[in-house]
């Protein structure tokens, strides 16, 4: 579904991402892990189009998406969440979801004016459902900035899902969560997989990654050092070294 070939991104002299390859198959949960500064977030930003790659290509369903501008990537079926939550803090919860209602999947069905001014007629219904799914229905009219941290994470996920993406990029969704919330997240990711979403999970939290992913790719200093099932990766000496340091 998503194929990354020889992807590199250099900032000045720093090689944040340096020639990595991986590919994600439809329907799987693919983990991208690595220590701090290993290039995970840069990779996500490259896939989303926030950065232009220095070299390499990103194929989505067989098409090179390098020339596609950021905002059009959602139309292709790529939606994401952010490591540091990026909600529209001064818009209401409802409006945050409304934003994602311009997704391509809906585009053909609605006339231009209606789409921009009122949104789709059944949008209201879908947003209501999405809010219920995330357990945020009672806060629909509150400003997103006023939500608790966990609620904000859920809202961000709901916003990404509102666009009906085929590939969902989750950038460290467990950051800042407690054990209980992580358990909930675990369940939610599995539920999403069952609904047919393909997921690229960038995560720091090992237990979560090992529990929900089908395959994992490990980065270190911008290079791929291992790829395989969670179990295979865990056994890999290079990975152990990257995570635990050479001293041990």
């Amino acid at each position, binding site marked *: 579904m998503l194929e990354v070939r020889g992807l590199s991104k250099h900032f000045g002299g720093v090689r944040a991402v340096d020639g990595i390859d991986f590919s994600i198959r439809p329907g799987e949960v693919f983990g991208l892990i690595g220590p701090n500064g290993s290039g995970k977030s840069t990779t996500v930003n490259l896939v989303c189009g926030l950065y232009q790659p220095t070299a390499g290509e990103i194929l989505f369903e067989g098409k090179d998406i390098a020339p596609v501008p950021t*905002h059009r990537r959602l139309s292709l079926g790529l939606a994401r969440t952010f490591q540091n939550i990026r909600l*529209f803090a001064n818009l209401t919860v409802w409006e945050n979801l409304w*934003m994602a*209602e*311009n997704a*391509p999947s809906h585009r053909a069905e609605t006339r231009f004016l209606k789409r921009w*001014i009122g949104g789709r007629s059944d949008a*209201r219904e879908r947003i209501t459902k999405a809010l219920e799914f995330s357990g945020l229905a009672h806060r629909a009219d509150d400003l997103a900035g006023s939500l608790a941290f966990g609620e904000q994470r859920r809202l961000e996920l709901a916003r990404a899902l509102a666009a009906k993406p085929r590939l969902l990029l989750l950038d460290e969704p467990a950051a800042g969560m407690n054990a209980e919330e992580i358990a909930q997240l675990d369940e939610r990711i599995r539920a999403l997989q069952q609904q047919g979403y393909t997921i690229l999970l960038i995560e720091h939290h090992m237990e979560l990654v090992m529990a929900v992913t089908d395959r994992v790719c490990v980065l270190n200093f911008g290079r791929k050092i291992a790829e395989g099932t969670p179990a295979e990766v865990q056994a890999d000496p290079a990975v152990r070294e990257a995570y635990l340091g050479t001293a041990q």
Partner: protein
Amino acid sequence: MDFYYSLAQIIGFHTLLGLSAYIVLQTGQVSLAQAGFFAIGAYVAGMLTVLAGWHLVPAMLVAGLGAALMACLVGFPALRVRGLMLVIATLAFGEAVRLFFFNFDYQIAKGEVKIGPLGGEGFRQIRWFPENGWTSLEVMLFVWTVVALVAGALWWNDRSRFGAVLRAVGEDEVAAQSVGINLTAVKVTAMTIGGFIAGLGGAIYAHYTTHIEHLNFNVLLATFAIAYPILGGLRSVFGTIVAAIFVQGFLVEGLRFLGDWRNLLFGALIVLAMNLRPHGLIDAATARRLARLFSREQWRGEQRRA
């Protein structure tokens, strides 16, 4: 009464100026080019009614469109800069427009006198209102009809999806892109609409003062354009209207009895207002209270409960 009608006209075109900046500010862009668009509206409308003998209404529309076109053209390059850089870039553009009119001579002979813009000496005798026998009351009603139409459209826009999109862009451009919002389209559209509104305001201004010159459209006016929505709290069109009334009605006219002290207080009161109400006269809390009064949120709430 004549005086109050006249004051209402002043507040009217200042409100339009403020609203033109309001919609641009919603996308997070602080534009100091609004005085330039206002100037374009003023000169174009004045030339159409005085030199071409048009009726004011079509002249205003053309003036608005002219200003909108210019705003659209500025919108594209201005997209590349943000924050303070954008403030200065738009300031530079607005000043360039003003200086263009400083160097702009286009006079034709009408009878024994020459009429039309004459560079630094300005453009005299834009007397469409009195020549057509409009009373102050009629002019005021006309001005406020335009203001009501524009404010109404923007108020409605605030409730529409596009309005929310504008604010989303203002909140977080990266997140907006990631939910599929085309920043270029949104920002340029906001700029263009803002240009159109400023053009309308400028057209009214020219016909109010009957004489315009480039110095009227200076940086101070551009600062006022953004001051109204900022003082108003950026949450609703009412804030901008309230701020225009506050500045033009209270600070400028209301305090006139203070004589010498008035202009000293003018700056001091702006400083004080921003200290007391940094989020504007009508801030988020007030705006939401207002919005609840007559928004469709209630209706939406009922929908959900059903």
